[in-house]
């Protein structure tokens, strides 16, 4: 077993629990915080796999910037509301839960078995460093990269256009 495996288990459990927390919490702020934790542990998982740049970008972009904006909006709109509505248990849940568990079990049994035999890939020291990703991004994958950035630019311009009152 690799030395990173216990770390992986801990991180994976925390990340799954926080991902469940995102949908399970009733207060939107707590959901958002769970999402932050999920992103953060995901970044740590990337570190564990040696993908430094990806992990740090994950923290910087998702945990550090996007989620702050989410929280900002949630707080501005005061979406607080500690379980104000009495929840009725939906009867469909009695069918939905067993069926989804069954499907999950079916998928997992098919997936776990071959995954146990996946050879541990040996990656070099350079893997996941800025020195490896930078050249790849700007030579081999320059077109997809540029198209993605243009897409983002279009998104920004579009949102500003929509936010403006007069065109």
């Amino acid at each position: 077993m690799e030395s990173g495996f216990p770390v992986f288990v801990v991180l994976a459990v925390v990340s799954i629990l926080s991902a469940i927390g995102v949908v399970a919490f009733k207060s939107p702020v707590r959901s958002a915080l769970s999402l932050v934790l999920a992103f953060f542990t995901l970044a740590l998982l990337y570190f564990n796999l040696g993908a430094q740049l990806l992990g740090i970008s994950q923290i910087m972009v998702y945990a550090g910037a996007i989620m702050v904006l989410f929280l900002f909006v949630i707080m501005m709109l005061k979406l607080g509301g500690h379980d104000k509505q009495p929840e009725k248990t939906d009867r469909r849940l009695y069918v939905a839960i067993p069926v989804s568990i069954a499907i999950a079990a079916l998928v997992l049994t098919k997936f776990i078995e071959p995954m146990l035999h996946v050879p541990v890939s040996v990656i070099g020291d350079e893997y996941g460093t800025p020195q490896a990703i930078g050249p790849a991004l700007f030579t081999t994958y320059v077109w997809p990269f540029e198209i993605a950035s243009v897409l983002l630019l279009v998104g920004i311009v579009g949102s500003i256009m929509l936010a403006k009152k007069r065109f």
Partner: protein
Amino acid sequence: MTEWLARQSELTLAIIRVLLLIAPILILVPGLIWWERRLLSWMQDRIGPNRVPTMTNAKGRKYRAAGLVQTLFDGLKLFLKEDITPASVDRKIYFFAPALALFPAFVLGGTMPFAPQSGIWQYLTPVADIEIGLMFVLAISSLGVYGVVLAGYASNNKYSLMGGLRASAQLISYELAMGVSLLAVVFASGSLKMTKLVEMQEADWLGGVPAVQNWFILTPYGLVAGVIFLICMVAESNRAPFDLPEAENELIAGYHTEYSSMKFAVFFMGEYAAMFIFSGIFACVFLGGYNILPIDWAYLHSTTGSSFFKVVADLNYWLAPLTFLGKCTFGITFYIWLRATLPRLRYDQLMSLGWKTLLPVAVVNFCLVGVWLIMEDVMSVGIAWVTYAISVVLILALWFGIKNKLPNKLERRTVTLVDPKRSA
């Protein structure tokens, strides 16, 4: 000692390194608060805390250690105070927020080297010498906002919430300019690794002057980037003149209004620790890290043969942590000086400074470094600097050409405290 360290396991070394980073901060934070209060009072023509401790010897002579112990007693007072938790707070988040504010302040220093990477020091610093050192700093400093925002939200108080919202807007805006200003330096040195960044500053000045080290603050692009980083760093640690999240005349105390005793102390400590570490990062990235002067002693020693330079080089090596601490103190003094000098920015001024001034200047600076790098690569260092100078002149000409044609929406308010005509 060096051999003993070399034999230790990676885990033991990591613990030693973390302690070497955290312990000085924890010990020095009270000193820092004392320094701030004394310096502020000196700048404001007051005396400041100078009494505690007053010791009397057998002959009845009184000694004062310049009030140095005052902060310790202040801390003790804070810890012993009644801890009030308002009834309507969101309890879990309320308790969690101070911890979340302290966490980034300490983690931030994880990639910061305070001594050269040779001999004994290589085992002691930095905590983690990772390839993405500088990005780590940016990422962790971007997490700093959570403590403030959640404290503001959990307090269930409109003023606190306002403070939290201001903090999130401010920190996100200034992160951008900070990132781009650092990019210029990263571009010039070709690495994100903090130790590499410091090593790059030991090269020849401006790429061609031997004996002088290439501290980034001494290069034109580094100076611009350094000033922008310095401003952003003050904004990131919520210090005056960017202390809008806790503006006391508008928001009582902003996000920590509802906090008392220990929990308030934790916020306080987080702020000072962040100041400390940001100063350290500034020293690492722009002020040549642990080198005492921008002079290449080893080069001087090899050219002149004078053993004096050898001695200085050795001193430079062995006193590296002290030099680094001195540079941190320099940064902190700058923080305090700013606080004593500048009035707090208005919200629109804050936003326009961040988005309309710092960010464009940082981007232009970044592009200029690119031009310089290409010219140096293709032609030579001299030609690169000539091109750089021409580009700067062109950009300045362009700016002064269009400056008056741009719409200026920033409201200007002036207050005449004493009317010069009437006072005569």
